[in-house]
C-alpha cells in the first residue's frame, strides 16, 4: 500500500507540474491560441495532488470548470489537454469541451460543468449504481465554497446519507464565489450543516501542505470505504489569480493582497526554490512537447460539427 506514504518530493513534483502547466497557459493566452475562458487553479494545486494520489483508477472524480489541476492530478493526458484548450481535434473531447468541460473517463475524470454545483449529484448517482452492484469504489465530487449554497448540494448530502453511499464531498474553500466573499453569502456553517445530515466532516486549514492533505485524504477515503458512508472534507485554499482569466485583480478591491501574500509565504511551490529549480527542466520539457502537439494538430472541420449530438 502506498497510502499515507507519498513523499514530499513526489507530491511537490505533481503540484509543480500543474503550476507550470497553468503558467504556460498564462504565457500563451495573449496569443489567442487558447480561445476558451480559463479558471486557473494556481494556489490550489495541493488539494488536487493530495486527493488524487489517494484515489484508485476506478474511483471516479466529478469536477468543475476550475478543473485543470484535478484533470492532471488524476492522470488526464497533458498533450490532449493542450490540444483541447487550442480547440484542436486531438483534444480529448475533440475541441468541443475547452477548458471548462474537462474529462478523462479512462482515468476516472467524469466531467466538469460550468454551472456551479451541478456535478455534485452525479457523484451520488454513480455511487448509488456501484452500491447496487456491490462494488468497492469511492466517488468524489469536488466543488468550491460557492457550490455549497446550491440546493442540489443539500439534496445530494441528504440522499447520500440516507442511502449510505461512498461519496467524498470535497469543498475547496477559497472564500470567494467569483468576487463575493463567503461572509456575504452564507448564514450557515458548512460543518454543522453536513452534521445535520449525519455526515462526518473534517477540515484542513493549511491547504498548501500537500503532504498533510495526502494523509488526511487517505484517512478520509479509508473511512468512506470501510463504513460505506459519505464524508465531507473542507480544505481551505487560496486562489492566487482572478476568477476567470490569466491575470490578477487585486486593484479592484474585493480582496486583500496581504492575505494572498501570507498564503504564498507558506506555499512550497513559492518557497522551495531549490526543488523548483531541480524539477522544472524535466517538467518544462514535457509541457513544451504537449504544446507542440497542440500546435501541430488539426482543427476540427464542419464534418465534426453535428457529430455526437444525440
Amino acid at each position, binding site marked *: 500500500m502506498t497510502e499515507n506514504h507519498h513523499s514530499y518530493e513526489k507530491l511537490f513534483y505533481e503540484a509543480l507540474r500543474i503550476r507550470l502547466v497553468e503558467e504556460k497557459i498564462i504565457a500563451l493566452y495573449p496569443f489567442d491560441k487558447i480561445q476558451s475562458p480559463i479558471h486557473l487553479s494556481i494556489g490550489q494545486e495541493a488539494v488536487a495532488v493530495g486527493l488524487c494520489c489517494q484515489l484508485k483508477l476506478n474511483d471516479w472524480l466529478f469536477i468543475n470548470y476550475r478543473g485543470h489541476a484535478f484533470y492532471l492530478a488524476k492522470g488526464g493526458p497533458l498533450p490532449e489537454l493542450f490540444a483541447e484548450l487550442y480547440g484542436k481535434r486531438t483534444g480529448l473531447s475533440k475541441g468541443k469541451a475547452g477548458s471548462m468541460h474537462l474529462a478523462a473517463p479512462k482515468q476516472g475524470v467524469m466531467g466538469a460543468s460550468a454551472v456551479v454545483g451541478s456535478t455534485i449529484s*452525479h457523484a451520488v448517482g454513480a455511487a448509488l449504481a456501484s452500491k447496487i452492484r456491490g462494488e468497492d469504489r469511492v466517488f468524489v465530487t469536488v466543488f468550491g465554497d460557492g457550490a455549497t449554497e446550491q440546493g442540489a448540494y443539500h*439534496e445530494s448530502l441528504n440522499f447520500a446519507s440516507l442511502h449510505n453511499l461512498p461519496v467524498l464531498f470535497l469543498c475547496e474553500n477559497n472564500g470567494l464565489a467569483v468576487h463575493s466573499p463567503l461572509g456575504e453569502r452564507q448564514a450557515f456553517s458548512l460543518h454543522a450543516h453536513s452534521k445535520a445530515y449525519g455526515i462526518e466532516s473534517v477540515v484542513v486549514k493549511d491547504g498548501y501542505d500537500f503532504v498533510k492533505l495526502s494523509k488526511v485524504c487517505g484517512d478520509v477515503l479509508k473511512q468512506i470505504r470501510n463504513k460505506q458512508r459519505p464524508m465531507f472534507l473542507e480544505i481551505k485554499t487560496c486562489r492566487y489569480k482572478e476568477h476567470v482569466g490569466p491575470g490578477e485583480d487585486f486593484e479592484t478591491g474585493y480582496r486583500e493582497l496581504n492575505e494572498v501574500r501570507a498564503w504564498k509565504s507558506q506555499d512550497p511551490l513559492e518557497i522551495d526554490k531549490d526543488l523548483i529549480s531541480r524539477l522544472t527542466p524535466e517538467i518544462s520539457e514535457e509541457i513544451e512537447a504537449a504544446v507542440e502537439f497542440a500546435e501541430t494538430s488539426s482543427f476540427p472541420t464542419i464534418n465534426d460539427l453535428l457529430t455526437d*449530438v444525440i
Partner: protein
Amino acid sequence: MTTLPKMKYREALAQAMAEAIEDPRVLLIGQGVTDFKGIWGTTTGLHQKFPKRVIETPLSEDGIAGICIGASLNGMYPINTHIRADFGLLIFNQLINLAAKYRYMFGGLFEVPLMFRMVIGRSWGQGAQHSQSFQSLLGHIPGLLVMMPSNPQSIIQSYRHARKHHKGPVVMFEHRLMYELEFESKPDQHLLNPFGSRIERLGSDLTIVATSVMVLEAIRAADYLSQHGINAEIIDLHSISHPDHDLIFNSVKKTGRLLVADTSWLPYGVAAEMSRIVAERDPSVLKRPIRSLGMQPAPCPTAKVLEDFYYPDVRDIVNASSSLVQQSEDHTIPLPPKQAMTDFYKHFKGPF
C-alpha cells in the same frame, strides 16, 4: 372478424415498467414509485420485487435528476418519474445543461441513456401548476429525444426501444386524461418506427397533425366530419423532437390543408414547428392558410367553466377543419355540441 385485444393506457405503462425493471440496469426512481398509488398504478408492486432498484425519493427533483445522470454514467438506465410535468421544471438545469449536452460537450466521451417520465396532469381542476405541457420547450433543445405517445402500443414500443437502443436522454410526456382509456390494438403497429411520426388515419381533404390526447380528439372529429363528407388525414406526431418531415410534408402536399392540434400553447410551439416544416419546403402546396389549435394564451384556470373554454376540443377541430375545407369561416357543417374532454371520457370522477 376476430376482436383485437384491448388495453388501457395505464396498463401499457405498467407493462412497460414491469418489463423494464427486469433489466438489471434499470432504476425506477421518483417521488411516489414505491407508495400505494404507484404513479397511478404504473409502478405498483415493483418495489417489493426489486427493492434495490425501485427507489422512493426525497422531494429533490434537481438532485434526483443529477443522481440519475451519475447512475447512467455508471452503467444504469434510470427511469425518473414526475407525477406532474410541472414538477419536472425543477430538473431543467440537469436536463438541459447536463443530460442533453453530456455526449456532445465532451466530444463523445460519455453517453447518458436515461428516461424521464413526465405526466401532463390535465383532468379537471388542476389549475395553473398541475396541468402544463412542456413538449415544445424541450423539443427546442438539441440532444434530447422528446416523445408524446398517444396509445398503449406506442408506449410499449417506444419505451422498450428507448431503453434498449437509445444512448441518450429521453423525455416521455404521458397524458393523465388517457390513463384509464381503453384502446383497441392495431395489427400493423409493430411495423412502425418506434420513434417516428405515424399516420393515424388516411384522408384526402385535410391533414390534422395532433399530439397526445389531441390525437383522440382528432379521431372523434374525423369520424364526425366523415358523416358530413369531409375526409381528414390524421398524423400522430408522436416524436416532438424528431418529427417525420417527409411524412408531414407529403400529407399536406396531398391534402393542401393543415390543421395542428396540440396540447400546449401555440407560440413557438408544435404548431409553429409544423408550419416551419411546410413553409420552408414549399408553401405553395397549401390551398389555405394553416390553422392551429392549442391552449388559450393564459395560465390554466381552475374553475371548470373557464377550463372548458381554455382547452380546444372536438367541436373546435370540426369547426377549424370545416373552415379549411370549405375555404370559409361561414362553413355549412353543423357543429357537434361543445363537450369537454373530461366529460366525454367519463373516467374522471376525482380526486386526482
